[in-house]
């Protein structure tokens, strides 16, 4: 499976167009502000709006059938990235390309990219029965003939490990793991090519998490799905992903093959992150964590965003933003120490 090789970083010089390509994606929040606020700011009566740069110049490509992991802590922009890729949010600038073609931002959005959410408790309409939750989209979009919808839904339920007998139930009548299976069946109902999983197994108990991780891997093999797998759990990402993007405060700080990145991290942040992850085989650890909080994205530090917490920071890191560039074949990092 490791042979599913990735296009070159940046996506140039690839014969088959990557199924997903993201170019210079940036997303600002609060740039406009309210009309009154802008008016007051124009008159000098209020401070000008300070936009939050949730996503800052993110570029990468994912090959068909590949699993791209995205890891990072709160405020790193991983969920914003997922929403933009899934077509649920417009970028402020930059573009998303699907199989070589630019995807127009906004509605109606394509069905070929679907999202699985973290919280199966809030992502399913509580007033709809399971057959409708799963069957509505394929019926409306005429993916199957109206007469065939019930059988189609039953097949999806079976495939995702939900007893089709339960089709008349409501979401609240299922356990968390079962609800996540319903969410997956719903996403698959419109025959997507790419699934964006945003912390899709994070809220589940570990024995249930294993069931869902296995389901994702089986579906990938059977249906040739491509995943953007967003998670804060490095263990899960290592298990399912081929490559990984490590994000910090809206920017990609490192990317590459998942084992390479986790076993031989280049960026000091990746190193700190990998070291902080508790592991079953590490007993009676003397924790020596990196100091400091994750800075607020409203007010990111100048230069390299990580410099206030970085044990190796120099004067240059405080002044100049490092550029994400290739440091080894298939490996990118944004750190001045590589110069």
């Amino acid at each position, binding site marked *: 499976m490791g042979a599913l090789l990735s296009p070159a970083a940046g996506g140039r010089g690839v014969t088959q167009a990557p199924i997903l390509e993201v170019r210079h994606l940036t997303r600002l929040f609060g740039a406009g502000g309210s009309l009154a606020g802008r008016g007051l700011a124009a008159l000098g009566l209020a401070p000008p709006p300070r936009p939050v740069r949730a996503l800052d110049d993110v570029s990468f490509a994912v090959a068909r059938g590949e699993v791209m992991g995205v890891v990072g802590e709160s405020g790193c922009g991983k969920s914003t990235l997922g929403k933009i890729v899934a077509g649920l949010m417009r970028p402020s600038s930059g573009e998303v390309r699907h199989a070589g073609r630019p995807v127009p931002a906004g509605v109606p959005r394509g069905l070929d990219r679907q999202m699985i959410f973290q919280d199966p408790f809030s992502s399913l309409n509580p007033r709809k029965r399971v057959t409708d939750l799963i069957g509505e989209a394929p019926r409306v979009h005429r993916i199957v003939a109206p007469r065939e919808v019930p059988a189609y839904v039953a097949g999806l339920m079976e495939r995702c490990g939900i007893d089709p007998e339960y089709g008349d139930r409501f979401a609240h009548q299922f356990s*968390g793991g079962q609800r996540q299976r319903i969410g997956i069946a719903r996403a698959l109902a419109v025959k997507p090519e790419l699934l964006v999983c945003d912390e899709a197994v994070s809220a589940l108990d570990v024995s249930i998490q294993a069931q869902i991780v296995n389901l994702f891997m089986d579906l990938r093999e059977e249906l040739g799905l491509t995943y953007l797998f967003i998670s804060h759990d490095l263990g899960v990402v290592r298990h*399912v992903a081929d490559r990984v993007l490590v994000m910090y405060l809206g920017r990609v700080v490192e990317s590459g093959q998942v084992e390479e990145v986790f076993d031989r991290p280049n960026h000091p942040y990746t190193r700190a992150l990998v070291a902080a992850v508790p592991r079953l085989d590490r007993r*009676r650890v003397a924790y020596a964590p990196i100091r400091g909080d994750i800075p607020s994205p409203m007010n990111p530090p100048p230069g390299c965003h990580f410099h206030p917490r970085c044990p190796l920071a120099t004067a240059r890191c405080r002044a100049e933003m490092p550029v994400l560039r290739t440091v080894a074949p298939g490996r990118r990092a944004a750190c001045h120490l590589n110069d």
Partner: protein
Amino acid sequence: MAPVLDIRGLRTAFATAAGDLHALDGIDLVVNRGEIVALVGESGSGKSVTGFSITGLLPAAARVTAGEVRLNGIDLRALSPAAMRSLRGRKVAMIFQDPMMTLNPVLRIDTQMTDALRAHLPLGRAEARARCAAALAEVGIDEPEARLKMYPHQLSGGMRQRVAIAIALLHSPDLVIADEPTTALDVTIQGQILAVVQRLCREKGTALVWITHDLAVVAGIADRIAVMYAGRIVEQGPVDAVLDAPRHPYTRGLIDSVPASHPKGQRLPQIPGRMPTLTELPEGCAFAPRCTRRSAACAARPDPAEAAPGRWVRCFHPLPGAGG
């Protein structure tokens, strides 16, 4: 010397329309001075109810129906509410997953901390304040004087959890019960909290019960592990013994479900089904319906058996131990 915490046969029930449902069914747990014991289990296993049963903070519908809870030899069940209140915060303290369970959102940190301190100690304001600042410094908060003047919302999640820990440790309690205190935190912040808790327990000899669903966290911090399933401790013992050679099939399944212990891309061994809810508990072993080793014997209730010194397993068909 008596252990700090000694629980025998603890049963806790929730009163429902369908009658009493036992969320805890015969918990035995001993924690010694300076020891860190992890209580591990999935949602609904009863691990948090165990914590609340010890501290006397159970919701109104729940009550302890049987068993003993002794803190330094004192039977907590025999205490009046007033006596229990005077122990709580002073001898036994609790840290929650959400620090806002501890903190009042509309009071400044200094108000809350000095209140907590002066509830049990006859201190003047200035002295109380100085002690609070020292307590914040001890959990690794920079500029404690400035932080004391802040409201909880002005602090980050990790910082709030540090404040909650500082409050829990204000009176140097003999026992701290930490209920998933790092679950909501980012991993680099979790590392900071683990370091603080670990250091303070070692330095002060505080006994710690660390409640969590995350086996990897306890591998790094705990001395002993107790694994809970559907209201019972199914296995307990020293951390290395339990994690390296689990005896209960559920513990084995839980360890195998962790992705990091498998070659990449391989199917994870999964435990079929899910934990029964309180209304659907089977008569005998609650894990039997999901267990590959079950037999007719499992229809009866298994009792804890000492498989090796300090090693208890509640199973009719335990896995073979590694060299005893």
